[in-house]
């Protein structure tokens, strides 16, 4: 796979921030995941390896270290519910249960219709507004069942 020209140009630009091009790998994986299907496919790893002059196995080692990089296809919407201490104290388990029931996705899996992925996350730094989840990169905080229904109900 070759990167789309626009993305390639953006990644080239991104790498100019660093004295060593390889430092651009993690931001580049973010951009690839955002632009190319929501997960780090083998094609993306190989393209990144080529782009950065690395071996694919090195990209794999890095990508698999960071949980934000999905190494399996995700649903159209990814809901990450924080279940660390501050959220746990304010009902993260109920949020997880509610979200799973509502979307039909198990924790760590996709809904049968492929629309949702539900995962649990460690501390997201929104502790003063617990409980929270991250929906497709946006934080939703101070969650209540009603609020969750309104947020998820509004999704296409």
């Amino acid at each position, binding site marked *: 796979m070759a990167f789309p020209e626009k993305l390639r140009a953006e990644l080239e630009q991104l790498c100019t921030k660093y004295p060593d091009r390889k430092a651009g790998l*993690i931001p580049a994986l973010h951009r690839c995941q955002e632009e190319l299907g929501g997960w780090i496919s083998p094609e993306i790893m190989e393209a990144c390896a080529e782009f950065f002059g690395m071996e694919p196995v090195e990209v794999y080692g890095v990508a698999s*270290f960071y949980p*934000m990089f999905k190494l399996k296809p995700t649903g159209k919407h990814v809901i990450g519910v924080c279940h660390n*201490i501050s959220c746990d*104290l304010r009902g993260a388990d109920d949020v997880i249960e509610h979200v799973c029931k509502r979307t039909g996705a198990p924790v760590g899996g996709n809904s049968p219709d492929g629309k949702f992925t539900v995962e649990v996350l460690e501390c997201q*730094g929104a502790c003063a507004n617990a409980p929270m989840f991250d929906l497709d990169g946006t934080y939703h905080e101070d969650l209540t069942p009603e609020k969750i229904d309104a947020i998820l109900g509004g999704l296409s």
Partner: protein
Amino acid sequence: MSARETYLLDRCKLEDSHTLAVYRANGGYKALEKVLKGGMGWAEVIEEVKASGLRGRGGAGFPTGLKWSFMPDPAKDPRTRYMAVNADESEPGTCKDRVLLREDPHGLVEGCLIAAYAMRLDAVYIYVRGEYRKPYDRVQAAIDEARAAGLVGANVMGTDFSCEIHMHKGAGAYICGEETGLMESLEGKRGHPRPKPPFPAGFGLWGQPTTVNNVESIFNVPFILDRGAQWFRSLGTEASPGNFLCGISGHVAKPGVYEVALGTPARQILDELAGGVWKGRQLKAWFPGGSSTGLLPASLIDTPMDHDSIKGIGSMFGTGAMIMLDETACTVRASQVLARFYDHESCGQCSQCREGTQWLHQIFRRIEEGRGTMADIDNLERLARGMAPGKTICALADAAAIPTLAALKHFRHELVEHVERGCCPFKKGGASAAPAAAEVHA
């Protein structure tokens, strides 16, 4: 409390606080101008920061000015020099830097510029945790605005001082908040902390002299330069001057991020700012400064929130993020949640940390689920002592061991009760129905 002086969050309350216009209208970039155009030498800036007694706000509380002075003299060491700003805020309970990044990004940018001048840096990288998308965008926008206004890049404010500030995004790893893990990650690698020595000031990013500072630490710098070290020392305590951002979360009526003078008693923060324990309940336990500082009993809630006072009760000030547990909370459950966290976040290099964090998690889970034994309780202590202190490359093993030992010290009776009753006594219905956290990890 009513007369307390604030500065850290003052601008955040304003509309469009993140823009250059609002920042400038409220005294922004005045300190930078004073430094660059007021004839302050770089050494004077470091001296002023040293004199202020500012201690790092990222958790260790190391004096910022002293850290800056570790950077080698460019006359003797001509290598490229960097600062990495640690905006990888991920210590459980900690949510303060997010407010600054999102609401007052120019404050950070100005702080970076002053730091760059003082340490004669070539470039600054702001390492923001990947999940903080909006804060990232806000800081990036602030840098762009500042660049357009001649404040970032070549010849800042028309002087011969130049400095680049770059944004960098992490991807979900607590360990990248450890300064050497951060540097590895910034270089595009797995976030494996580096053994020290060598220290970052001698061998940091790409092997060059580097200093790593927390967002809130840097954010304090323009205020110190603008108002003076003496003013800064008028706030807080002798050994811990200034105000700090206290994120208070858990079982409180009004969780939030509050600006408090160091040395303010924890009870005062809880009662006067956070509205006390929620639902009219009693406090059972609390963390003074993020999960890694360990649980303390309610009886210690009158302790002043500053480095020495908290150290005095056998804990750590950490990030100053207070987490409150009411009388219905289960300290075993809390310990299990945190053990799971460290298990999830250990980078896996050091044997004790890799295996120990998983092991602690497994034992706490069994005890919480009513499947623990008395031998497990002893084992927790043995394992925690086998992991720390100082037995591993970085302090993550310590961060996992400390809350374990604290739970054993202050709440051993709850562990014993779980074992004896064969269930969690705090769970509705009393039966052990906790979700198996094993799936969570797969």
